[in-house]
């Protein structure tokens, strides 16, 4: 399965949520590959706490591979290379967790047929080796996003013979504020948005929309106001939430399209990292955060739950 992670703006929590999703999927027993396609600023290394890869790999990353400068993309076993000792353990029954880092100092580049072909080959190879491949795209309409859409277009993607269903998911991450909801709607449906472009490269609209789901990140509740909340604040938050829901629905980003919601997690405000059950047991992370990541992983993994019928 291929999962693409896109977002309207920077700072939505796309990468940190995707890394956590990858981690949770591996706990469910899936072999997971994490492809850092955030060519402008590859950060997955930092989130998985792999030294010397905080900002990508110095040689042979995905950037070089797409450009044709490397024959094989660099890869690291996250559990082996992470500095975080608790993450090094591989719990019984869990699957592989492998990072394909981006290049240190890599930049966005132009869209060419060769780039698309390289991406197709990459996807083909990792799909064969792993159960789940998460492709973390740069924010907005980037060339990484365009290359990806071209590489999965029905024009070029061969029908799998053994399975009737081609398992691709397209996640759109956005924060739970008025501006982010509007921006996310624009990125997906706007004139220069993802959906029109997907149709341009050969998707039928309905077919593509079946792949798309949203994730609402860092959704606050009243506790964001502090320990003691006034009645007025509680009422205000509830009403604002209702208004946002209506706004999201109006922009076609309603419940039908919702894959999951992650709560505002104070730990992640200070440091982007993997939230382990250990962090919850130490009373550092909120239990709801770990549950939300776990729920998202379960949903992504289950075809029926994903379709939501």
């Amino acid at each position, binding site marked *: 399965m291929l999962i693409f992670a896109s977002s309207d703006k920077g700072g939505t929590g796309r990468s940190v949520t995707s890394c956590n999703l990858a981690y949770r999927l591996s706990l469910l027993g899936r072999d997971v590959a994490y492809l850092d396609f955030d060519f402008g600023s590859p950060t997955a290394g930092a989130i998985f706490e792999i030294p010397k890869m905080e900002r990508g790999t110095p040689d042979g990353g995905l950037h070089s591979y797409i450009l044709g400068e490397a024959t094989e993309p660099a890869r690291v076993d996250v559990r082996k290379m992470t500095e975080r000792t608790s993450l090094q353990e591989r719990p019984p029954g869990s699957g592989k967790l492998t990072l394909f880092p981006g290049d240190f100092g890599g930049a966005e580049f132009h869209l060419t047929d060769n780039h698309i072909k390289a991406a197709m080959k990459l996807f083909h190879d990792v799909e064969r080796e792993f159960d789940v491949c998460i492709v973390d795209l740069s924010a907005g309409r980037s060339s990484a996003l365009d290359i990806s859409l071209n590489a999965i277009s029905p024009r070029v993607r061969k029908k799998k013979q053994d399975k009737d269903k081609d398992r691709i998911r397209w996640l759109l991450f956005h924060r739970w504020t008025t501006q982010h909801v509007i921006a996310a709607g624009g990125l997906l449906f706007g004139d220069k948005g993802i959906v029109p472009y997907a149709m341009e490269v050969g998707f039928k609209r309905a077919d593509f929309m079946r792949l798309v789901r949203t994730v609402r990140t860092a959704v606050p509740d009243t506790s964001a106001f502090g320990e003691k909340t006034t009645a007025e604040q509680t009422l205000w938050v509830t009403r604002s939430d209702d208004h946002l*829901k*209506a706004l999201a*629905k109006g922009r076609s980003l309603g419940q*039908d399209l919702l894959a999951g919601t992650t709560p505002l997690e104070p730990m992640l405000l200070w440091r982007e990292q993997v939230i382990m059950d250990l962090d919850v047991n130490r009373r550092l992370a909120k239990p709801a955060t770990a549950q939300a990541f776990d729920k998202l992983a379960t949903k992504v993994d289950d075809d029926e739950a994903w379709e939501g*019928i």
Partner: protein
Amino acid sequence: MRIQPRKQILDIWRSMLAECYRDQKWIWGGRVESNPISDAEQLLCMLYPITQIETFAVHDPDATQPDVLRALRPLGPEATKIPRTLVDVALDYFQNHTDEREEPRFAAGSYLRGMSQDAPVPQDEGLQRLEVVDGYSMSITLCLTLLAFVNDREEHETNSGQHRKLVDLRDRASRRLTAAMVGLLRSFVVNSVSPESSQGRAILEMLRQGDTTDAELAQGLKIRFDRLRAQLKTDLRLSVPEESKPEEDQLFECGWSWGIAKDAKVITEYAADSSMSSKAGIAQPRPWLYFTVSALDGIVDLNSRRIRALNIFTPEQRSLAEALALRWDLTQNYWSAVARFDPERWPLEDIPWRTSDGQESDYYSLLVVSVLIQDLIARTATDADLIKAVGIIEELARRGRITQRMTPDDAAMALHYPGVPQGLVGSEVVVGTTLALYTSDYAPLIIKRALQAAQLTDNVEAREALMNVAEAAMDHLDERRMTRDGESVELWDDVSHFPGLESLTFQGPSWYFTERVVEALVATAATYEKEPPRSSRMYDHLLRLLNEADHVYNKAMLRSNVDDRSTLRDRLGEIGQLIKRARELRRRRTSTAIALSERALRLLDALEQADEDAGRSR
């Protein structure tokens, strides 16, 4: 106790789902085996609040309230799944209660009992032919609810397979609705009797209150009933059989029998292909008060503004609704004339009410109250009439041992358990013995009527009295909740705490009763949704307060330094806001506005005291 519809309905849902939704399967039936009426009631426990109260709606997953979502979680982990599960359950209902020729089934089945409590009910084929008006009117409520739900749901359903289910559900609900309307139409009866017959004497006895002379009585009958008599005789749309038309010297009653009347005409103008239009009736052709009120309630729903606005009827259904509305009008006028025959002393005040077949019960008085409330809604009764009705409702609450204690061997006990038997005269032709339907909804009915009445008045004392009755009845219901593993759950009905009934055990929830409680809660919610009543005396008081506050405030402003940026300026600003807000609220929330004005006055006085203190000379 204070009635809290939101909390209570959600609690009922939780208890209900724990009871009848296991392993993602809906379990039909409760105290009695599944039958079309009980199953409709069971489904309505869930769907009625969902479609009637805005904040309980689930058709739009983006607007579903979080507490509703949590209560309904067993139906689906997500807001999108819940309405889909409900659609499946509703489709299952139609699957179960439709016969092999695609005709809806209405038989009362397991609801029927012998005329005496313990008499066995013959289990034969004939039982399936016994349909009662309750079945039709409950189906009307259910189908209208489902049609409204499908309507709301349609624009939010994006999945095409699910969309097809909605279309299927609409078809089935619509077909059943037509059949139920035809059934109701064919159960309408007119019963004409001579004043000397036993029925005639019973009617006259109920009408004659105090020292009415024969001449006064005759005069009253003429004024009150001549127009109705003329309409029954001449209005072709009513198609009253020749032999039922009231002669000049006859008394008459009109309303609903317990089922399709014996010798009811075959209907050819509507739904001619449905067996409902032609099947032979067996019910004795005279009105039963209980079934009349049940039909009247159902028809009110059919012709409500809300349903009309939805535009869900087929042309055939529209004609049927009109035909039923015509009979509704006539019946309402008839019973209203009977209930208030003598304006000085209403027959309705003479509790208990006696029916023309000689039965008397407080329950019948409560049923007639509903006719009176409809008069109030239609503004053919006045506020003075309402005050009188309040007295009657309070009296019925006392007599029904809702506001009073129940004693051993209390005659009122039978109102609640086993209920008032409605003998289905004519059923013996089919099953060999006369069967009965037991009605035990006295307590929830009192809540519903008290709250309907409360909505109609701005008389604060009358509202207070009605709310007190409703709250007392809710206390009474609270004690009748069932127990599961030693804990009370929000399901009914368990009366083992009544003196003398300690040995009884009650298994399975009664959906008949639980649905009535839900209806009462929905009626309460509707009352709360409205703005509180206004009182002109309070309004006068408010204007005086505002006037003084304004005056003192203006004076303080006049004397305060415009360049001041201190806390004093803030305080004056706050007072100005209070006065402004009080003015905005003066009509909508008079009492709130008074509270705000009072606060403004107190704050102004504190400033004045400081001012005075500073200016005092030793």
